[in-house]
């Protein structure tokens, strides 16, 4: 199976694997690097990382599927993750999810045909005092309203 990374990412992985008390401990950060480079963790990355870590592909697969932040398939350029836990729910998270869903024409778990947006639901993001909240890729957007969502999606569509 072929799997390749940019030289910079490869160097970063080497640093990570050398920096932990044992190589296997670097698997979580290494998966973050792969996802940052590829947008998700492709199947081919699993044996590749297992070899670097000196562990089995089953171990790496187990880790990659245990943690929710690793996408095991391609996602849109913008991954919208709306919190649905209690504090957000009390502040109208259901309406927010429905609004985003309607605006983009996709249900949670789906990606728009142009590959721009993926919608997911997330559990508590630690932003309960500024609910409702969603993450767009790595960034938090808090105190959401239908208007602020519309404006945000327009900005993202325009590539800003």
């Amino acid at each position: 199976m072929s799997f390749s990374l940019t030289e910079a990412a490869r160097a970063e992985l080497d640093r990570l694997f050398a920096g932990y008390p044992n190589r296997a401990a670097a698997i979580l950060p290494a998966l973050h690097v792969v996802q940052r480079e590829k947008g998700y963790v492709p199947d081919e990355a699993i044996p590749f990382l297992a070899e670097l870590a000196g562990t089995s592909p089953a171990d790496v697969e187990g880790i990659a599927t245990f943690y929710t932040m690793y996408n095991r398939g391609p996602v849109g350029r913008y991954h919208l993750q709306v919190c649905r836990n209690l504090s957000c729910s009390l502040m109208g998270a259901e309406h927010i999810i429905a609004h985003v869903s309607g605006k983009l024409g996709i249900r949670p778990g789906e990606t728009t045909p142009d590959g721009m947006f993926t919608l997911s639901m997330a559990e508590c993001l630690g932003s309960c005092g500024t609910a409702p909240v969603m993450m767009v890729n790595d960034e938090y957007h808090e105190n959401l309203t239908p208007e602020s969502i519309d404006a945000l999606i327009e900005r993202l569509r325009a590539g800003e």
Partner: protein
Amino acid sequence: MSGRRMETVLTTHFADEGFRRLEGYLGKAGYEGLRKAVAMPREAIVDEVKKANLRGRGGAGFPAGVKWGFLPKDLSRPRVLVVNADEGEPGTFKDRLILSRGPHLLVEGIAITCFALQIHEAWIYIRGEYAREARILEEALSEARAAGFLGKDLLGSGFDLEVVLHRGAGAYICGEETSTINSLEGKRGWPRLKPPFPAAVGAFGRPTLVNNVETLANVPWILRNGGERFAALGCEKNGGTRLVGVSGPVVRPGIYELPANANLRSVVYDVAGGLRDGKALKAVIPGGSSTPVLRADEIDVTLDIESMAAKGTMAGTCGVIVIPEGTCMVRALSVLMNFYAHESCGQCSPCREGTGWLARIVGRIEAGEGKPGDVELILDVCDNMSGRTICALADAAAMPAQSFIGKFRGEFDRHIAEGKCRP
């Protein structure tokens, strides 16, 4: 609250944008606690923390000084500090505030703690979603290293300390300390059987102390001002202040630093301004989503650990979730049960199966498809979960289920009988 301005430990300078940078922090007595500590005998530092009555802020409330004492006296095996920044208990968002507004409080707290306990290696386990906070913290660590507060021979004391930031990847269970350790070692976040306790065999097989962000962030103030003064800010057995997070439809949601014995009613009505749109209060979850819910008529209670326990609930993380009249408690519980089912690590059958069944049964009641006997079935499932698993996640799921039914049974029965919602 009373007119007297309360003394604060953590949030005093949080409004000041410059406080997150080293220069601003140094201007507010930053690293004076560490300077003082490195000139003290190590036991004297631990004694100050014991005198402070500092209790763990991660939810369990264990006395920090006592926990520090569990590390073996024998120094032949290198020991490790793991900083738990994996904040994930729904309703809890306090550590995020410290990480983004006062990262040096944590860094200094780490340095003092490690110096006192002769720990040369600290790992900060931060939840993966806190990408911005991780960047801010990484910057603070770099600043502290460059200024000699971390690294080799810190402050000329001859003591070396390395601190590494490690990002998680989305798993509530990784806030459980042995799960944190497994995750740090690059494994699935499965909690470990105890014994051995982390203090004996922890991260990478080494003696390990695990402390929460807020716990450690209090340490610099304790060193600067003394444990007794810290203890006096709180009440008996609960030293200092608490970062109380108020969420839900209140006028002023947010984090407030309050005495450990602040009154919950006053938190909801005075501090957070009461409910929006003049709504009435229905219930309060006082300490994060797993702590038993209180009815509106039960919130005349102070936030300290013992008073909350006497009310049949827990101070937990002081993540106060305010539930207004008109909320369907079956729906609210369904949201929570979905969460625990999603976050169970799957290791122990009572939790893996139990959380799934709780989510399905509460879900079907909510959907109008509940059957007679479902409420009893929920309680039976809870009985088969509590205390029967490696970690406390099963209990954390059972407690809200039991308390929601205990306090709002009528709503569940009506939902089943009528197949619809009438909160």
